[in-house]
Every structure is written in structure tokens, then in C-alpha cells.
């Protein structure tokens, strides 16, 4: 069973729109299709501006898609409201502090999903909050405090607790640890792993940190310029990268014991979203580019077991 299926999902933003004229279309997400299996952690990596957050916001219904189809647990979600989405799929935000309303107590924050999504009564809510707090290792005395009294790591636990309260089976984790210190980051990642086992959750884990993604994911999807350029098993995708961009990412990550040398690439500019290239969007930076790359945008093709890449000249070996 697939927890989530996405087909040809596209998002076009209109920029420079005024009252009188239609703006230009910027394609932030371009015909993405993928699926997330039940109980799986799918890692999503890519550089800033590649469409990670736009994709995530469409999946939870915070942003309407321009085209395409989202199927959650087998059901097509075309006209679903955020409220319906909220019971099936939840979001954990990058900035833990700003995801909590500064003027509400933690109890009020925790009660919202229980009340609004599940219509629970007072006694039932209190019981549920105690259970959830116990499972994310938070003390109940925190419930009467305000968000600014917490450290980033604690605030992120509260954000996770809120997502659990909605009782959704799928969590989108949008850079959940990038605002945290490494020692706290590991605490939160381990907590997420425990919760997943305990509640049978499915994760979409978005991050720009390749090592973190590799450490927590079953499969990894690499995005570039709004499309999926490679997807494959976490233990193979960086080691045996097929797409030149994945390889560039993997070689750029600072690793203890590897000499410092910027990996080869032709330029470092992303394509202009207002004027997208007709061929492979990576062609301007790619050292493997050939003539065909300038004209034909490559499609995802299987290049190993469960390993797909969109490239005319994939790296072999």
C-alpha cells in the first residue's frame, strides 16, 4: 500500500501580477510523480529554491496545486480542505519557535487539533495530551508555559507533539532539525525514529543536509529546479549516484578525511525560472553535458533496482 501517491503535480506561481495584467508564470514544481510507501521514510534533498517547501505545502493542502493529483491512503484529494488534510497528513516546521503562537500557552496549542479535528471533550483532551507528552519526553508542567520559554529543541518537540495530536499517519518534516544544534539535533532525530516505530508513521523528511537525510531515510529523492532528478535507496543514492547533480551534491558535502577541493562544475547559477531552458535544466553546470542535453529534457528512467535518474548520460559504476 502506498501512503501517498503524487502524479504530475505542478505548481505555477504568477509573478508581477497587477490588478489589470496577468503576470508571468514561474514553475516552482514541474510535473512531479512519486509515491511514498506505507511506513517508509522518504528523504527529499535539494538546494534552496528547488521547490522542496512548495511541494510540501501542496501535499498538506496549504497551497493549491496548479495541475496534477495527490492521493493520500488511496483517496484522491482534489477539493479537500486543510481540515480534511489535517487528519491524514501533518507538518512539522523548520523554525520551531515561530511555528508556535507566542500568545498561547502550550496547552492551548495542543488542544487545537484535538478540539477542531477530532471534536474531543475536555477530559478526553487532557488524557490524550498527557499520553502524547509522555511519548515525546516532555514534562506536563510545560503545558502552562508560553513558547518563548523554551529552547529550540524543546519547542521542536512541542511542534512534533502537536502533529501527533492530529493523529495523522503521515508527517511532512520540513527541515525539522536545521535550526537546532548538533547535540540537540540528534535527540530530535532519535525521537522521530522512536515515534515512527511506535505509531507506524510515514515520513517525508526534507533537508539540505545530505548526511542527516541518509541517516534517517529508506529512500531519497533529489530535486533540482522543480523536478525529480534522481530517486533511489538511501544507501545507494549518494554512493552510486547516477545523476551528475546528485554526484555534485555528494562531493560537495564536507567530509572528515576528504581533502578540500571544490568538485568540478561549469558554473553555479541556477536556470532563470522565468525563462526555463528547453533541455536539461542542469546542462549549464554539468560537466557530462552533450548536445542532446541542450534540447531534450530527460525523463526519469530506471537505472538499477528501485533507482531512477533523469539524465541522458548517467554516471555508470
Amino acid at each position, binding site marked *: 500500500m502506498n501512503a501517498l501517491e503524487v502524479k504530475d503535480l505542478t505548481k505555477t506561481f504568477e509573478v508581477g501580477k497587477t*490588478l489589470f495584467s496577468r503576470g508571468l508564470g514561474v514553475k516552482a514544481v514541474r510535473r512531479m510523480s512519486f509515491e511514498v510507501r506505507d511506513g517508509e521514510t522518504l528523504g527529499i534533498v535539494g*538546494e*534552496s529554491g528547488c521547490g522542496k517547501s512548495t511541494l510540501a*505545502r501542496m501535499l*498538506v*493542502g*496549504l497551497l493549491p496545486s496548479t495541475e496534477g493529483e495527490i492521493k493520500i491512503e488511496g483517496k484522491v484529494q482534489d477539493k479537500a480542505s*486543510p481540515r480534511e488534510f*489535517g*487528519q491524514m497528513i*501533518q*507538518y512539522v*516546521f*523548520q523554525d520551531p519557535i*515561530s*511555528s*508556535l*503562537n507566542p*500568545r*498561547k500557552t502550550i496547552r492551548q496549542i495542543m488542544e*487545537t*487539533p484535538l478540539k*477542531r*479535528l477530532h471534536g474531543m471533550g475536555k477530559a478526553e483532551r487532557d488524557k490524550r495530551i498527557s499520553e502524547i507528552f509522555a511519548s515525546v519526553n516532555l514534562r506536563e508542567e510545560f503545558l502552562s508555559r508560553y513558547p518563548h520559554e523554551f529552547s529550540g529543541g524543546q519547542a521542536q518537540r512541542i*511542534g512534533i507533539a*502537536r502533529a501527533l495530536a*492530529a493523529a495523522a499517519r503521515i508527517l511532512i518534516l520540513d527541515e525539522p532539525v536545521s535550526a537546532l*544544534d*548538533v*547535540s*540537540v539535533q*540528534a*535527540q530530535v*532525530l*532519535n525521537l522521530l*525514529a522512536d515515534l515512527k516505530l511506535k505509531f507506524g508513521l510515514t515520513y517525508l523528511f526534507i533537508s539540505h543536509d*545530505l*548526511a*542527516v537525510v*541518509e*541517516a*534517517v531515510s*529508506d529512500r531519497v529523492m533529489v530535486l533540482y529546479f522543480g523536478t525529480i532528478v534522481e530517486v533511489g535507496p*538511501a*544507501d545507494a543514492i549518494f554512493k552510486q549516484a547516477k545523476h551528475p547533480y546528485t554526484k555534485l*551534491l*555528494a*562531493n*560537495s*558535502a*564536507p*567530509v*572528515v*578525511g576528504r581533502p*578540500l577541493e*571544490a*568538485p568540478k*562544475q561549469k*558554473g*553555479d547559477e541556477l536556470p532563470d525560472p522565468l525563462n526555463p531552458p528547453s533541455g536539461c535544466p542542469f546542462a549549464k553546470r554539468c560537466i557530462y553535458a552533450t548536445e542532446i542535453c541542450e534540447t531534450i529534457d530527460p525523463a526519469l528512467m530506471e537505472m538499477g533496482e528501485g533507482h531512477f535518474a533523469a539524465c541522458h548520460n548517467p554516471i555508470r559504476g
Partner: protein
Amino acid sequence: MIQFLNLLFRNRLAGLGAGMLVLILLIALITPVLPLPDPNITATADRFMSPFSEGHLLGTDHLGRDLLSRLLSGTRLSLAVGVAAALIATVIGSSIGIVAGFLGGRTDNIIMRLVDMLMAFPYILLALAIVAALGPGLNNALIAVAAVNVPFFARNIRGVTVGLANKEFVDAARLNGMSNGQIIFSEILPNVLPVIVIAMSTTIGWMILETAGLSFLGLGSQPPQADLGSMLGEARAALITFPHTSVVPGIMIFLIVMSINLLGDGVRDAIDPRLKSGALSRPLPATIVERKEVPPTPDKDLLSLQELRTEFHVGERVYKAVGGVSLKVNKGECLGIIGESGSGKSVTALSVMGLVASPPGKIVGGTVSFQGKDLVGASYNELRSLRGDRVAYIFQDPLSTLHPLYTVGDQLIEAMQAHRSVPQKDAQARAVELLEAVRIPNAAQRVKNYPHEMSGGMRQRVSIAMALANEPDVIIADEPTTALDVTVQAQILSLLNDLRRERDLAIVFITHDFGVVAQLCDRVAVMYAGQIVEEGPTAAILDDPQHPYTKRLMACVPELGGGKRELHAIAGLPPAVDQLPQGCAFAARCEFAQEVCRQGGIMLEPKGERAVRCLFPVNADQIEVTL
């Protein structure tokens, strides 16, 4: 709330305003029960009696009406109308602002264009036009004053709401099943309320004045009813001959508006959190120095810190951000400082050139010696001549060092000319050279770009070029690649590495990434709670960390190529630097901690090239950390 009142009344003027206002309000409240003659009874025989005449404490006006009685009932009326106008303007204006800001898009566009149109009319003309259209009368004056103030509230509140509507907690509320209306009331409103209160408390005085103005022109309250404005208007004819008839209401208007404005400013200052930390007081150009003793300065290293201590004094609290740091760096060498957030890395770096914001920052001990000269005791002029010239900084956010309104070329030229006179032409050529040195393609064209026309990586290259402009001896880079994508980070790191080789630069590189340290730095210092806990050659420390913290911290970091795995977290949090424990700061989280660890300060023990601040260092041959 109590804290708020304390803060409010610490401001004497606000206290005075509040006192005066309470008094005026009290009098206005009890006016109906005071034994006063009817304010509207005329007695032409008693016209223009002077103050302190019998039966008329403040005298009488041109129709012989008792001035005191008219004054008090006029005050009541003016206050009531002014407050009503303010409330109406606040409620309508804020609602418009919240709805426009929250919904955004087309709705926002249309609403705000309408508001702009209202604002385009001169204020008083608009009020006059409204009264002219509706006809004179107090109610219509009230409507007019409220209407002309609506745009002010709408604009201000919209601005704040737009900021809030994009906050992640609003998204979270949506996902938790709240409707737009519920979000506005329970998420947005509580957060804009302080702004509404500030806006109202600073404008209500003017609204009272405007209502009085309309009445003065005969467009507000109609005779015989008195408000302060109409009293003034009626007294105008006798301004020279019987000045008391105009002075009396005049003083009252003055007192009301003054007290409200003093209080309003006080409220604004007390609510504005920037004032709470005292941060609005302008920082000094160099950090305050208050050293008890001045240690001797060794002169053999290019840049060296000895026992540097920097503290922040905020109210009663003392944050020991840097608690005795010793470091050194020489030509062509790269020293890494690694540590978690709040461990004092940035404050250490900023202390070198006296750049820590003062107040609240203070250097309370130690020395910073640059080529044998103590910089901590140096004058501001000496520091300024070294800043950016011999010692340059690169920060995490290049936009904080680049000015958005000048081209990068102009900024490079300015950086050079700040320290020595360079002919414009040479400076221009040099600016291009610098951009080429940081590997910006097509440098001759790029010098003409503004910072916003460049990508994040390009901008960071430009800030490196700025740092190189005067051929400095030392570059202090505070997390220069943290905000960049990995592919760009790799390029910037290798650029810095090449530059130090080519130019024999000394680099102090602050980071929280072991991978970066391993690739770039010759030596590394690990900081925890304001102190260095371990220091030495990078390879030695990474292969064989001896401080328990270093070892645990390294185990927390996943490394690429390790596959799916569990990470080793360190339980707990670092101590707050205003409540440091006695003894070892890591003791609460350390698995080797013994009683002695908690007793006294622990020294950084040198061992050959390395140094460790721990009583029971981990040895290389000891078994793996058990978890």
C-alpha cells in the same frame, strides 16, 4: 501586567500624564453631582464676569453663563466624543487592516488602494468635506474625525498582519482545522492587539483636538451645548477684551491632549520590546573595557588572545559569554573554532576588534595582542585604523555587510579608500582584480552590479573580496558558509583555502561543522559554555578526541556514507552562561563526571601540542563511549 506597569511608571513623564488624566477623568465623571449652576442658563446682566467673582469661580462668558460649569460639562462632552471617535476609528481601521493583511492578494490590493485614496486628501479638508456633506452637528463631527483616522489604523495594522499571516503558526492552525475567522480571532488578533493599543494611545489626543477644531469652526457641537472647541469659538470675539473666556477652555484642551500624549508615548515605549533590553541606547563605537589587571602581552604571534573575558550585563544578570579564552594564529595558518550555538564563538571573534555591542557588552579581562600590541587597551582611533585594514571580518549573512543601494564596485572602492588614499582609477582597477581574485566570472561587468542582483554565493564572494581589499593579515570568518547551499559552500571553502596559501593569510574560521574544520583548519579549538575545552592540531583531535564533550559531539554528527543509523545524542542542554555551575560546565551531561569535577574551576592542561580542560580525559585506547 505588573511588569508592564512598572516599566510604564519608570518613565516619569508617562506617570505625570497618567496622574493628570485620571484627575481630569474623575472630575468629568463626578460633574453631574457637583453643586454647579446649569451650564446653559443665560444671564445677560452678568456677562463677562472675571474669575473668582462671587458664585462664579471662573467667571462668566458673553451670555453670563457660569464658565466653570460650562468648562466641566464641555470637558465631559469633548472627552466622550474624542474617545468615541478614537474607538470607532480603531475598530473599523484595525478590522480593515487585519482583513486586508490576512487575506492578501486581490482583496488586499483593492482595499489598500481605497485607503490610499482617502489618505491622498489633506486631512482637515477631508473632515470638513464630510461635515459639509452630512451637515454640522456633534455626531457628524464625530463621524468625520473617525473617518479621517481610519486609514492610519488600516495601514499600520495591515502591515503587522501581513507579517503574522505568513508565520508558520498560522499554517499550523490551518492544518489543525481552524477556519479563517477562527484564525483571525485566536491567532492574529492577540498578536496585533499591542500594536492597536499603541496606535490608539498615541492618536486619541489628536482626535480630541480635531473634534474640538471642528466645534471651534462651528461645525461640531451646536449652541447652547458646550464642548471645549465651541467654547473657544464663542470666546474668539472677546479674545482681547476678556481673555479668560478663551484661556480657560484653552488650558483644559492643552492639559487633556498633553496628558494623553505623554501617557500614550509611555505606553508605546513600555510595550515595545526593543526598549526592554536597553538595546535602543546607541552602542558605543568600541566595546567598553573594564579590566582589573592587565596581563603582559607576548609578542611572538601574529594574533593571540590570553584569558579573554567578555561579559554582558543586563539588569541584574551577568552573562559570561567568553570566560577566559586563549588562542593564537600565525601567518598562513587557519584556526577553527567549533562549538554549539551560544558557546561564545561569535563574541570571542567580535571582542578581538572591540566590536561587541556596548552596552551591554564589556571586556572584563585578558588581552588581545596583534603583532605584539594589546588591542583591548587600544584607543578607538587605533582600533578603527586596524579594523578592515589589518584584521577583516566575514559574516554569515553577506547582506549585513553589503549596502543595498551601492554597487559592489563602489563598496570595494570605499573599503580601500577608508584606510589610504587611492586614486579613483587605480581603485577601480583594483576592485575588478579583487572580484577576479574571488573567482567571480566576468568581473569587469559584475563590479557594476548591486548586491540584490547577485546570488547568495556571489554575495559571499563579494564580502570576501571586501575583506581582502586592504590585504589584511588576519581574516576572521564567522560561519561564512552556514547560509549557503553545499555546492556553493564547497566553492567558498576552497576559495578561502587558496587565498590563504597565495597570500599567507591567517584565518580564524568559526563553524559548527566538523567536516568543514577537518577540510580547512590546521588547528581547532572546541568551545563549550564560553570556554575552550579542547585545542590542538585538527587531525589529532578528530582522530582522538580527549575531552568527553568533543567526543560526544562528534558522535552526534552523521557523516555522509554511513547509511541509515541511530545517532548518539547528548542528553540535556548546555548551561546558561548567566548560571554557570561551579567546576566543569559539562559535568551535568558528562558520563565520566565525578564529585571532584563539580568542585573547582578546571584548567586547560597543555599536553604537547594539545590542551584539554578535563580531569578525566578520554584516552584513545579506552573503550568506545557506552550509550
